[in-house]
C-alpha cells in the first residue's frame, strides 16, 4: 500500500531558486519601488523586464525537459505535514511568460498613462504585488498555496480597482469585486476541506495519485493508504467527490467572473485602464480557468457538466449584454466575461487544450483591445479642460477616429478581428477548436446537452456583432465630440499616443495574428495546441466523464470541415448585421448617439445585463442588511435584556422580599383577625403595628414550615 510520505518526498535543487526568482523579483519590486519616487516606473519596469527575460529563458530551456518539482514542508499539523510544491511543467512555463510579458507591457504603458497621478509609485508597487501573487498561483502545484495566492491576487485587484478611492464608485467596485470573489472562495475552501479530509494533503500530486487509487464502493468514496506508517482508511459518501469538484469550481466562478458572480467585472472597470488590461482581461480572470486546468483530472462527470453549462450560460449572457453598451470599457468587460465563458465551457466539455489555447490567445488580443481603448481614452481625456468636460470612455463622443489615430486603429482592429474570430487571427484557431470539440461532445452525449452548443454558436454571432459595432462607432463616420459640445471649442483633435502607449498596443495587435501559432487554419495545426495535451481523468471510473480522446474519430471527421465554415459564416453574419445597423449614417447609429439608453425589452435586458446586478443590490443586499439590523435589535433588546433581566429580577425580588418583610404580613393579620371575629376594630388596631406584624409573620411562617413538613 502506498504511503503518503513516499509521494511527498522533499526535494530541491539550485534550479529551484531560479524558478522562485520568478516570484521573488516582483515581490522585490513591491518592496523597493516605493523608494524611487519619480523614477519608480523605470525601476519597476526594469525589474519586470528581467523577470520576463527569466521566464522566457526558463520556457526555452525546459519546455521539453521532463517534469520536475520542488517540495518542502510548510508546517506540520499534528502528524500531517502541509507541503509546498512547485511544479515546472509546460502550463506553468507558458503562463509565467504570458503574465510577465503582459505585465511588462502594462508597466511600460502606464508610464505614460498614469504619469500625472500623485500616487504613481504606489501604483507600481501594487502592480508588483499583483504580479508576485499571480506568479504564486502559476508556480505552486498545491491547492492550499494556490488558494493563498488566489486571495492575494484578489487583494491586489481590490487595491488596484479602488486605486482612485476618492471616487465612491471606485471604492464600491473594489468591495464588490473582493466580496464576490470571497463568495467563490468559500466554495474553494469547502473543496479544500473535502479533499483534505479524504487525502490528508493539499499537494496536487498527492491528491492526484490517491484519487487514482480511490474507488467507489456501493456509493461510498473510499481511499486506503498509509500516512507515515499508520493506516489511513477514509470512506465518505460518493457524492462528496462531485461536491469537491463543484466546490472548487465555485472559486473559479468567482475569479473568472462566471455566472452568477460575474457582475463584479464590469464594475471593476473603475480601475485604471492598464489595470483592466492586465488583471481584468489577460491574467487574473484567467486564473480561474488555469485552476480548472490544474484540477481538471480530479473533476468527475457531474462536476464537468456543471462547469460546461455555467460556461455556456455566461458566454451567452455576457455577449448579449455587450451588444448595447455605450462605455467602450464596459463592452470589452462583457466580451471578456463572454470569452471566459468559452474557456470554462471548453474545460467543462473536456476540451482541455482548446480551453487553455483560447486562454492564451485571448490574453493577447483582449489586453491589446484594452490598451488601445486606453490610448483612445487617454488622448480624449487630454482634450478635456475647464470648459470642455465629457466622459472619455463613452463611445458616443468618439467616431471617425481612424483618420485621427490610425496606428491605434490598426492595433485595435487586429485584436478585434481576433475577438470576432475571423480566420487568420489567433482567436479563430482557439475558438474554432472549442466549437469543434463542443459539437463532438454534444453529438456523443446527446440528450439535452445541445443547449450549450446552441448558446455557444449564438454567441459567435453576437460576438462578431458587438465587435464590429464597436469598430464602426469608434473609428468610422465623423468625430462626434465637436458636435456634442456646441458652445465650447476643442483645443485640438485627438491623435496617436507616443511610443510608450503605442508600442505595447501594436505589439499585442501583431500577436493576435494567427501565424505566430502556426501557419494553419486549424487548431491542430498549431504547435502550442500540441504543447498542451489533454490529460486523462483520474477519478474512479464509475464517476469519470468520457474524455474527448476516447470519443471515436468518426464524430470528428464530419465536423472538421463544417465547424470552421459555420463559425466563419456566423461571424460574417454578425459583421453584416453590425454593418447594416451601425455603418456611418445608418439610422441605428443616429438613434444611438442621442439616446440616453437603449429602448425595447431586448435593449433593456442587454443594457442592464439581465438585471442581475439590481437583483443583488436591490434585493439580496438590502435583505441581508435588514436581517443584520433585526439581529442587532434582537441582541440589544431581547438577549441582553433577558440576561440583564435575570440580574434585574434579583433586584426586583429584593424589592419584593423587602415589601414582603414589611407589608405582606398585614394581609395575614387581617386573615387571623377575620377568623377571630371582630374585623373592624382589629384591622384598625393592627394596621401599622410593626412589632406585632413581625410576631405574627414569624409565627405564621413557623406554622407554614410545620405544614410543609407534615405533608
Amino acid at each position: 500500500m502506498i504511503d503518503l510520505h513516499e509521494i511527498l518526498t522533499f526535494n530541491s535543487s539550485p534550479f529551484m531558486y531560479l524558478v522562485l526568482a520568478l516570484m521573488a523579483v516582483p515581490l522585490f519590486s513591491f518592496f523597493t519601488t516605493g523608494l524611487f519616487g519619480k523614477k519608480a516606473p523605470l525601476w519597476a519596469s526594469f525589474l519586470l523586464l528581467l523577470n520576463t527575460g527569466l521566464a522566457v529563458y526558463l520556457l526555452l530551456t525546459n519546455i521539453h525537459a521532463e517534469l520536475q518539482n520542488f517540495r518542502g514542508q510548510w508546517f506540520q499539523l499534528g502528524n500531517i505535514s502541509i507541503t509546498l510544491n512547485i511544479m515546472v511543467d509546460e502550463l506553468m512555463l507558458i503562463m509565467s511568460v504570458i503574465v510577465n510579458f503582459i505585465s511588462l507591457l502594462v508597466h511600460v504603458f502606464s508610464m505614460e498613462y498614469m504619469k500625472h497621478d500623485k500616487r504613481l509609485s504606489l501604483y507600481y508597487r501594487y502592480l508588483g504585488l499583483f504580479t508576485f501573487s499571480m506568479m504564486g498561483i502559476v508556480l505552486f502545484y498545491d491547492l492550499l498555496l494556490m488558494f493563498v495566492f488566489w486571495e492575494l491576487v484578489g487583494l491586489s485587484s481590490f487595491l488596484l480597482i479602488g486605486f482612485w478611492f476618492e471616487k465612491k464608485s471606485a471604492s464600491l467596485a473594489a468591495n464588490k469585486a473582493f466580496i464576490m470573489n470571497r463568495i467563490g472562495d468559500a466554495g474553494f475552501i469547502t473543496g479544500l476541506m473535502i479533499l483534505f479530509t479524504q487525502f490528508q494533503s493539499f499537494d496536487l500530486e498527492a491528491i492526484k495519485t490517491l484519487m487514482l487509487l480511490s474507488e467507489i464502493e456501493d456509493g461510498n468514496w473510499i481511499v486506503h493508504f498509509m500516512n507515515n506508517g499508520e493506516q489511513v482508511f477514509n470512506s465518505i459518501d460518493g457524492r462528496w467527490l462531485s461536491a469537491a469538484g463543484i466546490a472548487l469550481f465555485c472559486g473559479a466562478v468567482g475569479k473568472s467572473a462566471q455566472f452568477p458572480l460575474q457582475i463584479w467585472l464590469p464594475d471593476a472597470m473603475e480601475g485604471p485602464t492598464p489595470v483592466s488590461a492586465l488583471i481584468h482581461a489577460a491574467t487574473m480572470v484567467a486564473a480561474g480557468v488555469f485552476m480548472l486546468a490544474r484540477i481538471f483530472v480530479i473533476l468527475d462527470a457531474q462536476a464537468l457538466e456543471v462547469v460546461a453549462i455555467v460556461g455556456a450560460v455566461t458566454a451567452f449572457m455576457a455577449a448579449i449584454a455587450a451588444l448595447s453598451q455605450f462605455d467602450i470599457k464596459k463592452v470589452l468587460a462583457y466580451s471578456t466575461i463572454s470569452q471566459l465563458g468559452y474557456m470554462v465551457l471548453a474545460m467543462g466539455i473536456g476540451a482541455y487544450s482548446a480551453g487553455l489555447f483560447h486562454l492564451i490567445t485571448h490574453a493577447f488580443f483582449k489586453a491589446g483591445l484594452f490598451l488601445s481603448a486606453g490610448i483612445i481614452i487617454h488622448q480624449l481625456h487630454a482634450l478635456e479642460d475647464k470648459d470642455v468636460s465629457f466622459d472619455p470612455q463613452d463611445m458616443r463622443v468618439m467616431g471617425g477616429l481612424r483618420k485621427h489615430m490610425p496606428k491605434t486603429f490598426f492595433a485595435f482592429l487586429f485584436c478585434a478581428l481576433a475577438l470576432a474570430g475571423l480566420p487568420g487571427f489567433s482567436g479563430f484557431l482557439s475558438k474554432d477548436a472549442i466549437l469543434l470539440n463542443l459539437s463532438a461532445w454534444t453529438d456523443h452525449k446527446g440528450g439535452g446537452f445541445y443547449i450549450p452548443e446552441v448558446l455557444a454558436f449564438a454567441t459567435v454571432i453576437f460576438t462578431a456583432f458587438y465587435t464590429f459595432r464597436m469598430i464602426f462607432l469608434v473609428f468610422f463616420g465623423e468625430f462626434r465630440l465637436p458636435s456634442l459640445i456646441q458652445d465650447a471649442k476643442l483645443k485640438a483633435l485627438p491623435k496617436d499616443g507616443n511610443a510608450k502607449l503605442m508600442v505595447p498596443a501594436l505589439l499585442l495587435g501583431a500577436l493576435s495574428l494567427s501565424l505566430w501559432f502556426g501557419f494553419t487554419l486549424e487548431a491542430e495545426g498549431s504547435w502550442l495546441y500540441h504543447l498542451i495535451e489533454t490529460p486523462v481523468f483520474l477519478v474512479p471510473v464509475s464517476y469519470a466523464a468520457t474524455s474527448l480522446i476516447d470519443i471515436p474519430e468518426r464524430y470528428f471527421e464530419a465536423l472538421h470541415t463544417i465547424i470552421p465554415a459555420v463559425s466563419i459564416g456566423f461571424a460574417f453574419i454578425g459583421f453584416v448585421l453590425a454593418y447594416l445597423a451601425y455603418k456611418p449614417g445608418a439610422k441605428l447609429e443616429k438613434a444611438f448617439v442621442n439616446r440616453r439608453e437603449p429602448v425595447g425589452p431586448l435593449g433593456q435586458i442587454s443594457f442592464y445585463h439581465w438585471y442581475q446586478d439590481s437583483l443583488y443590490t436591490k434585493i439580496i443586499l438590502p435583505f441581508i442588511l435588514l436581517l443584520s439590523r433585526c439581529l442587532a435589535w434582537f441582541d440589544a433588546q431581547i438577549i441582553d435584556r433577558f440576561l440583564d433581566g435575570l440580574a434585574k429580577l434579583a433586584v426586583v425580588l429584593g424589592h419584593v422580599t423587602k415589601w414582603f418583610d414589611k407589608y405582606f404580613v398585614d394581609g395575614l393579620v387581617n386573615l387571623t383577625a377575620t377568623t377571630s371575629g371582630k374585623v373592624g376594630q382589629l384591622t384598625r388596631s393592627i394596621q401599622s403595628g410593626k412589632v406585632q406584624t413581625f410576631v405574627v409573620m414569624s409565627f405564621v411562617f413557623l406554622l407554614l414550615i410545620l405544614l410543609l413538613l407534615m405533608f
Partner: protein
Amino acid sequence: MPLNFVLFLGALLFCAGLYTVITKKNTIMVLVGVELMLNAANVNLVAFSRFDAVGIQGQVFALFVITVAAAEAAIGLALVVKVYQHFQTANIDEINELKG
C-alpha cells in the same frame, strides 16, 4: 384531674397570650400577653413534672421562668417608660419610625 385538661389550659393560655401580643395596641398589654404565654409554658412544665421519673425538674424550671419573666417585665416596663418619654405615648402603633 386528667393531664389533658391541664395541657388544654396551657394551650388556651398560650393562644390567648399570643393573641394579646398580636392585637393589643398598648405596649403594657402586649407585655402582659407575653407573660400569659410564659405562664402557659409554666402550666405545662408543672403538669409534666408530675410524670418526671427522677424529680421535679419541671417545677424548678417553672420557678426559674417566673423569675426571668419578672426580670424581663422589669426591663420591658423600663423601656416603656423610656419610650413614653420620647413619644408621649405607649401606643405601639405610633412607635414606628424605623423604616427599612
